[in-house]
């Protein structure tokens, strides 16, 4: 007993570590370095694509600079003397940067980036939370749409029933969106827990069902299509929500899609996510099931119940995103939007790059939100880079990021190789 007996790798060890396990290893090995390298690698490779398109290194650099400016992050370098509105009040405080000037493209871009960040954080959390329970939630898209459909439904129909003050109406509408997202995702969770239907398949099916049912609801002649008279009545879209149901915009012009209070809800959601996972019994159960459902079952944890709960909570996040977007700046739901939105899928990339941690999701969402607004065709000078190619470039970069996130082995190997190399060098030196 004095000496611990060395154990050989046992045969019954799982042949390979699970994804989650590897994330943990990575966090130890690389911390921020690994995801950062992933992103750098993705940008370098897509740089080759840009280089091939523009044909010159200078233009490639200019393209990237254009993308950067388009994100609005250059706003941070526009230091001046400006003021900002305090949420829920009409008070304004001095601020070093230009905050609310129609002529400031940077401020407007940053508002858009942060608006998108809000939604991406929430759909990212929807994917991440399910991941922590060992589930791959591809249904963020459908849950997001369900959330916004429910929100528009409540916000437009409830005032006919009862006249609520604005804040209450907003709260009830948001709650409706969250519930709708939860219910939709919950279906996948229940099916996984009871009959073992793979959540990847069921969430994909549910996405399509929501898309088509939503299209039906708001299509011309559909039951929830706008009741407006005349030309506006022919739009395949919902009725506009009442003004009082619009979420307060604290930065920028409410007319111009300024940044609304939903931004703070997203920040709070990151905290809620962290605390739920790490500080509650629910989070404990979810993580136990995610790491090892069998061991959890042997330990007395209801696996099926947690599959349902994890999916429902994931759906709540996505539904919240849908509701906030709707009440924050969309104000109506139209079927083109239902059909062409892809935010739930970007959420997958956010969760993967963020390694399912709160901080990671926050940072990854910023990257993808910035990428999205930066590559918007308005942001790029057509003489340098064809703007109609820019959105595809964003998708390519997303793909590369996800590819390299999955292949963290490269980075693990590189880091491990470096570590091993260093002592060897030291040894040869002495």
């Amino acid at each position: 007993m004095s000496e611990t007996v060395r154990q050989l790798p046992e045969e019954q060890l799982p042949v390979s570590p699970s994804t989650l396990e590897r994330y943990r290893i990575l966090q130890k090995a690389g911390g921020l370095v690994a995801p950062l390298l992933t992103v750098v690698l993705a940008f370098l490779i897509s740089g080759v694509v840009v280089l091939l398109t523009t044909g010159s290194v200078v233009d490639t650099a200019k393209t990237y600079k254009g993308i950067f400016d388009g994100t609005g992050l250059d706003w941070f370098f526009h230091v001046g003397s400006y003021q900002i509105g305090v949420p829920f009040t009409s008070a304004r405080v001095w601020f070093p940067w230009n905050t609310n000037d129609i002529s400031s493209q940077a401020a407007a871009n940053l508002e858009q980036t942060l608006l998108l960040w809000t939604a991406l954080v929430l759909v990212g959390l929807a994917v991440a939370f399910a991941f922590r329970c060992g589930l791959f939630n591809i249904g963020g898209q459908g849950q997001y749409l369900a959330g916004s459909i429910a929100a528009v439904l409540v916000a437009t129909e409830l005032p006919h029933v009862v006249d609520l003050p604005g804040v209450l109406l907003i709260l009830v509408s948001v709650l409706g969106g969250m519930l709708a997202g939860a219910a939709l995702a919950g279906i996948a969770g229940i099916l996984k827990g009871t009959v073992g239907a793979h959540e990847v398949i069921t969430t994909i099916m549910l996405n399509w069902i929501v898309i088509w049912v939503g299209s039906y609801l708001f299509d011309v002649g559909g039951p929830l299509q706008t009741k407006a008279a005349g030309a506006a009545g022919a739009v395949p879209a919902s009725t506009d929500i009442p003004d009082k149901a619009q979420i307060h915009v604290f930065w920028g012009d409410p007319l111009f899609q300024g940044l609304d209070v939903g931004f703070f809800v997203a920040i709070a959601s990151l905290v809620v996510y962290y605390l739920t996972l790490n500080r509650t019994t629910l989070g404990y159960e979810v993580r136990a099931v995610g790491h090892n459902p069998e061991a959890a079952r042997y330990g007395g944890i209801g696996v099926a119940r947690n599959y349902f709960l994890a999916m429902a909570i994931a759906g709540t996040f996505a539904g919240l995103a849908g509701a906030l977007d709707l009440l924050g700046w969309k104000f109506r739901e139209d079927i083109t939007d239902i059909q062409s939105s892809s935010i739930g899928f970007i959420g997958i990339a956010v969760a993967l790059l963020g390694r399912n941690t709160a901080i990671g999701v926050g940072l990854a969402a910023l990257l993808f939100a910035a990428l999205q607004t930066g590559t918007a065709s308005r942001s790029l000078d057509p003489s340098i880079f064809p703007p109609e190619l820019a959105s595809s470039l964003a998708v390519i970069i997303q793909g590369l990021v996800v590819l390299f996130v999955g292949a963290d082995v490269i980075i693990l190997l590189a880091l491990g190789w470096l570590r091993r190399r260093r002592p060897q060098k030291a040894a040869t030196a002495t």
Partner: protein
Amino acid sequence: MSEAVPVLELRGITKEFPGILANDHVDFDLRRGEVHALLGENGAGKSTLMNVLYGLYRPDEGEIRIGGKPVVFHSSKDAIEHGIGMVHQHFMLIPVMTVAENIVLGDEPSENGVLLDYGAARGRVRELSRSFGFAIDPDALVQDITVGQQQRVEILKALYRRADILVLDEPTAVLTPQEAGELFEILRTLSREGLSIIFISHKLNEVLEIADRITVLRRGKLVDTLPAEGATEAGLARLMVGREVLLRVEKTAATPGEPLLKVVDLHVRDERGIEKVRGVSFEAHAGEIVGLAGVDGNGQTELIDALAGLKRPEAGRVELAGRDVTRDSVRAHFDDGFGHIPQDRQRHGLVLEFSIAENVALHEFRTAPDSRLGWLHPRTLIERARRLIREFDVRGGGPETHAGALSGGNQQKVILAREIDRDPRVLVAGQPTRGLDVGAIEFVHRRLVEERGEGRAILLVSLELDEILSLSDRILVLYEGEIVGEFPPTVSEEELGLAMTGGMHAEHAA
């Protein structure tokens, strides 16, 4: 003959894994027609050496010679081509495929060079199994045949590839003494036919029974190679462990109290709907260890699952300290004073990615002081873990170390600590020492006996007869889902083995 060139030589084989020197300049040679045993504890480097021989690992140093000529194996394919056949401890068989498919896999007979010739495959399997006296249906699915038969399929796989060197890695681990006896007959036949056999084991009696020569490994190093004739169990044990081993656990006689676990006419089906427990009834009393002996796959898993609430029984009743818990959830069982050491420590016992603190809280985290109103108190978890780590001598990390980073023995201590710390009335221990080293085994055994002294009823389910015999106060034998006998701990291995194979039942496998 014996002075001729050995059919196989290993010279100075060295293999290092990160942090472990698994083989340290090991020499080994094999003569034609002999059974050469490779003896050593778990982790002594036997399997590594054989995986090097089979081309699965590449040695860092050293040389393999076949018939005197040096060879280099890049894969198992090369080894197979040089006439080496391997029967792995964990069978390399595909459960959903037929016996014939498994045997011909990788070297399939074909029709017109395109289609797989199933007729020819079946024919050759039949032919082979007849010539060596195996009765195996080539069309049976592997998942439907017994473990003993599966092992024979593995041997056939090697023979089909015309192996003349056969390596068997811990072949008796899953067999009853009777089945082991049959295996030895087969091995003798094969060696008479001119096959050379390497027999890997850590069981002294077996090695002495079957081997012509014995090579002992300890911690990756060659200790000695000696003829079986004249060797003794005690001598081999000393070579193997490096010190005298206590083969028996010291314990006083039991003083059984009230019955704490009562099982009445229990029937349980497995996932595929097959009834695996068929009318089991027994009692376990406070302060006694009841050993449940049996060959793997005779219903132990389903019985334990039913006792723990993991599986609903078809019929019957389970009582815990007088309360009917048959339909209770797993959690309710734990709350009612049930302790459970699962058979598979890594898959079922621990969440390897969780810290030790989180793992020891697995049953308690929902209640105060671990949590209040769903809010966890990590400090409580860590303090408890710190105390248990001290108490149970867990080595290799603190409360926040991941369970997966611990050695097998220490992982088992964490499970033991978790279950015992809750002061259970009934403790079910499923194969509590599987795969552990001698030191850890001693610890687990001592602790189980101590817990018996605390007045718990302990049900010990084990495939190791030694363990059953040395720990139990009463021994029940499970065969094909029924309890076929109850014995005192003084019973002989042979008698127990007979019961484990169905007593008077005719051998169904052969």
